[in-house]
């Protein structure tokens, strides 16, 4: 086992442990937690036994194991972008709701305080 394998397996092992702890402490939901744990274990296996990636790659019609890892990384990145985008849209919708409620509440408050009624106009000739 070379230095990279020792470092890589140690790191993926730590991430897998953190993931399990996250699920145990209910900071991660079980299904995504399990998916992440499997990903770390798969990464550790690929680092420890790189020849296995060649077998899997060739069974999928890809020549080199490194190519398989590269394709999966690209695919994973796009999935990640998509999930972040969906999350951003949800946040955006939430922000609009908050801004709307605040705007309406403030306007109603102003009217109840007498500052927003048409009667409160300063006059038709007010300078802009």
């Amino acid at each position: 086992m070379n230095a990279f394998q020792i470092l890589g397996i140690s790191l993926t092992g730590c991430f897998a442990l953190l993931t399990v702890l996250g699920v145990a402490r209910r900071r991660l939901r079980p299904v995504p937690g399990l998916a992440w744990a499997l990903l770390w274990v798969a990464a550790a296996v690929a680092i420890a036994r790189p020849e296995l990636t060649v077998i899997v790659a060739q069974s999928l019609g890809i020549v080199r194991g490194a190519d398989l890892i590269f394709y999966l990384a690209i695919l994973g990145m796009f999935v990640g972008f998509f999930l972040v985008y969906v999350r951003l849209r949800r946040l955006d919708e939430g922000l609009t709701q908050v801004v709307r409620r605040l705007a309406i509440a403030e306007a109603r408050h102003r009217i109840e305080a007498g500052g927003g009624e048409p009667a409160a106009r300063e006059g038709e000739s007010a300078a802009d």
Partner: protein
Amino acid sequence: MNDPATLVPRASTFIVIPAYNEAPTIGAVVRDLLPGWPRVVVVDDGSTDRTADTAARAGAEVVRHAVNRGQGAALQTGFDYCLAAGARFLVTFDGDGQHPSEELERLVEPVAAGRCDIALGSRFLDARSDVPALRRLLLKAAVIFTRVVSGLRVTDTHNGLRALTRDAAERLELRADRMAHASELLDQISSLGLSWAEVPVRVRYTRHSRAKGQRGLDALRVLVDYVLNRVFR
């Protein structure tokens, strides 16, 4: 009885004006409306100029977004505010001065008379609007797109002049915060089965309204926004 003025209850007809950095024009727009239409609601969409102050001084009821959320979001805020305030009819109106107030009576009349749920202003039903050539081309492309996607045979899609009943406003829910709301609204008219009619209106193209209007790249943005909103709604 056939006089439109007798059919339109102006006191309960709310004019909703979404406005973003419209300080140069919003005061005149509000003052032009107020003598005849007592409920003018300006939704200031997080402007960085004095739009809200100018509108309030001119006599409008001002609802102010703390941050800019887009014209669609501002319109929905205006709808929510007007419905809570007891509106019977709602009108959407642009704040850049391109809509003459004289058009309103004729726009609201078919809605107030119960002939349709929504009246859509169209600048292409008569020759009174001097639409710039490039904008005419973009709008015609948008019309074809809308006809294909929503199935509504409209002649104008991104016209800010519309009148709607309270019931229609309660059923509509604009989720497209930015400019794609105009196409979304037509989609919802179709999917909710709301009755609609087009009314010829005049649109004035001033230097200010041309500067604020959409350009070619904006049209592409609207298209992308529209598609994404349909995918993720």
